[in-house]
């Protein structure tokens, strides 16, 4: 033991002598370089963290989000889906782009369950979202019109969405069926419902923290073009795999 201690003492002495030997400028520059690299690493991490390349799929339960998720990832919804209990998230290259030879950055897609009890999960992913895809069931639209409009209204008035101007794509799913409504019809209906919601909600809230934002222009009928963040409408069919408009949206907002 004592031998060891002696050796350690010796090495310490040697080290000190060597350090003292070095000119002070070298020491200082070395230290500064070290500090700089550490700061840059941390900053880099921070930036990577806040740079958002996440696409969030949201919508009512049963609108087809999980099917779309697997279409994007694997090109087919495998054997079908059931009501999701947890969000699906993954980093991947879009299936249709997987044939391209050049290296494409993977996209992170999150499929948030639509069940009302699981709505708070959406708030976990919104801060990192580069774009939101709101999936609407074009087939079963009218009975659920109010619920769809309420959910959409809540998303459009979240502070995150408004401040970061996150673009929203309203995707009308299940358009392969004959009785599915067209996207224009759905857009008009949603605008009408949100207009009504706007009046009934803002008429009462003066100090409401969550819904600080009034959508659109007061006094005029609400239209999606009035939103500060870009809101667009598109059609798709998850089961059949017709998701070109959705992929376009993704490529637009997540740089490949």
């Amino acid at each position, binding site marked *: 033991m004592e031998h060891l201690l002696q050796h350690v003492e010796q090495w310490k002495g040697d080290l000190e002598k060597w350090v003292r030997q070095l000119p002070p400028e070298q020491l200082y520059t070395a230290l500064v370089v070290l500090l700089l690299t550490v700061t840059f690493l941390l900053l880099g991490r921070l930036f*990577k*963290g806040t740079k958002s390349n996440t696409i969030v799929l949201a919508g*009512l*339960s*049963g609108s087809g989000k*999980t*099917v779309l998720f697997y279409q994007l*990832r*694997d*090109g*087919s*919804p*495998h*054997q*079908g*889906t*059931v*009501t*999701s*209990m*947890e*969000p*699906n*998230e*993954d*980093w*991947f*290259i879009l299936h249709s782009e*997987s044939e391209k030879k050049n*290296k494409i950055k*993977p996209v*992170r897609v999150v*499929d948030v369950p639509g*069940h*009302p*009890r*699981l*709505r*708070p999960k959406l708030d*976990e992913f919104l801060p*990192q979202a580069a774009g939101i895809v709101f999936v609407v069931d074009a087939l*079963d639209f009218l009975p659920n019109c*109010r*619920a769809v409009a*309420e*959910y959409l209204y*809540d998303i459009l008035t979240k502070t995150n969405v408004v401040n970061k101007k996150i673009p929203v794509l309203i995707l009308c799913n299940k358009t392969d069926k004959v009785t599915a409504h067209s996207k224009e019809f759905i857009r008009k209906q949603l605008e009408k419902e949100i207009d*009504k*919601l706007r009046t*009934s*909600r803002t*008429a*009462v*809230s*003066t*100090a*409401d*923290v*969550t819904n600080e934002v009034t959508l659109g222009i007061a006094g005029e009928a609400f239209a999606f073009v009035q939103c500060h963040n870009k809101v667009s409408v598109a059609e798709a069919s998850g*089961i059949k795999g017709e998701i070109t408009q959705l992929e376009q949206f993704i490529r637009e907002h997540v740089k490949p």
Partner: protein
Amino acid sequence: MLEELLIFTRGGLILWTCKELGNALKGSPIDTLIRSCLLEERSADASYDYEAPSAGAAYTLKWTFHNELNLVFVAVYQRILRLLYVDDLLAAVKREFAAIYDPRSVARAEEMRKLKQVTARGSGNTTIKKQGQLAGHKVSQRSSSDSGSGKDDADGNLVKANGMVNESRAPGGMVKTDESSDGGAFDVNKLQKLRSKGVKKTNTVVGKVPKAEPKKATKKNRVWDDSPSESQLDFTDPGDQREEGEGEVVAAVQGESMMDKEEELSSDSDDEVDEVRENTQPSSKKGWFTSVLQSISGNTVLEKSDLKPALKALKDRLMTKNVAEEIAEKLCESVAASLEGKSSDHSLESHLLFIRYPCNIIWLFLQTAMEEALLRILTPKRSIDILRDVHVAKDQGKPYVIVFVGVNGVGKSTNLAKVAYWLQQHELKVMMAACDTFRSGAVEQLRTHARRLQVSLITLEEFPKCADIREGYEKDPAIVAKEAIQEAARNHSDVVLVDTAGRMQDNEPLMRALSKLINLNQPDLVLFVGEALVGNDAVDQLTKFDQKLADLSMTPNARLIDGILLTKFDTIDDKVGAALSMVYISGSPVMFVGCGQSYADLKKLNVKSIVKTLLK
């Protein structure tokens, strides 16, 4: 006879299904199971009964979880049968599947084969007519169809070999499996022979399956053949018997009433955890930090025995907060069911929490799981925005009718006045109906409130104006309510608040009268008024009320309790468990909370603060 055996992930993707071709499940039992049972934290129940609304088929569902891989295994069979082997079958399937499942695995063929063996062995006693659907690989878009005739023979052999009496596959079924053709390497004949022999052959089948070229920087899951199964099973069908989720928790209106004031939350710990979540990369990228932590904390798998002491402590803690004993028990079991088998080094989050609270890791897991579960239960599954509903009814030209029910002395009349006050502040025309014809002074009490709030009141004495008096007939509160609603429609009132007499849940004639009132008038909202001081009786009250309302109604679609009004909230300090018991047992959300005895003392339930208080 098993109708269906299904394996799916918690995220919703169906991994494997063993369907009886031609015997599609009627209705959507799996979706209903998820919505009404698993998401309601009743996953510790033994089984779930489902009745298809139109087709009249009744099923029983049993399930089990594999928490490590986030899988759910469900078996469906006819309700009239009593199958004893289902639990064992599920356990066996779970074991086998867990052994061969890998989210990125290539050898799906092997999984299918093994699973079919297990199923065949497990249900060999029963007469399963047809084999399940074969899912093969679609390797690189080239698909050489398998010899259909070959399959026929093989199936025929197998059927005979297993000693099953039933006929071989119908030609329709054959066409279906033809579609699910494999990449030419998956030899179905071999599969059948292997099945009949019950011998595992790992080399030939697996070796012939070529892998897809792994792309750079992606993990590509295997693409399976897509056999459109819409005609048979439509799992994404939103058709549901129960009233479905309409919107979510929304901050209600503002004004003088405390309903409208936002509660200041102590947001310290919430923010920290949120920040942690924001800054973490997706958990698939594990850094050096995580690996270091893993090596420190070890890699324990949570067993039931590990969880037991912590569970008991958690249950006791919940019970000290006035949660009913039954509910605490069920909740703890449900949370344990979702944690069993999980390995404790699961995510970066838990590690960061571990640093903050360096204590028993099991307790930590349980705490977080319970917190999530409580948040889930207390989050309403339908909109509690009454003002919106009132506006909708107004647009349609009818008054919005709210009925207040509950046992004696919980504060129905007082809180009715509070609700009337709140509605008045939002420029809505309110009318009250005094259907409490039993208690002395009830009508006078309401009359005083009506005078102070300047709303109109309909009581028994109003009858001469509205309808013929019939001897002994006017005492019926149902008729008073009906008259009140008609009067409201006539003078364009927006809301009608109906006060009823308090009654014990066991009192049969009174419950019958209540049921008659509700069914005759079909109110828009049936509010159960419960006091926060109630203990274990809350469970009994709510179940009996719901049950009686369902049993004693004439119509098939009985109106049940739609919402809860929690009263006397200011008298309990942190013993807020009654809210949880009531919400859990009835599934309906808490719409209002009465927190005082003056008009403005009405507020919304703050879910996060309740959960924090419960787990403190």
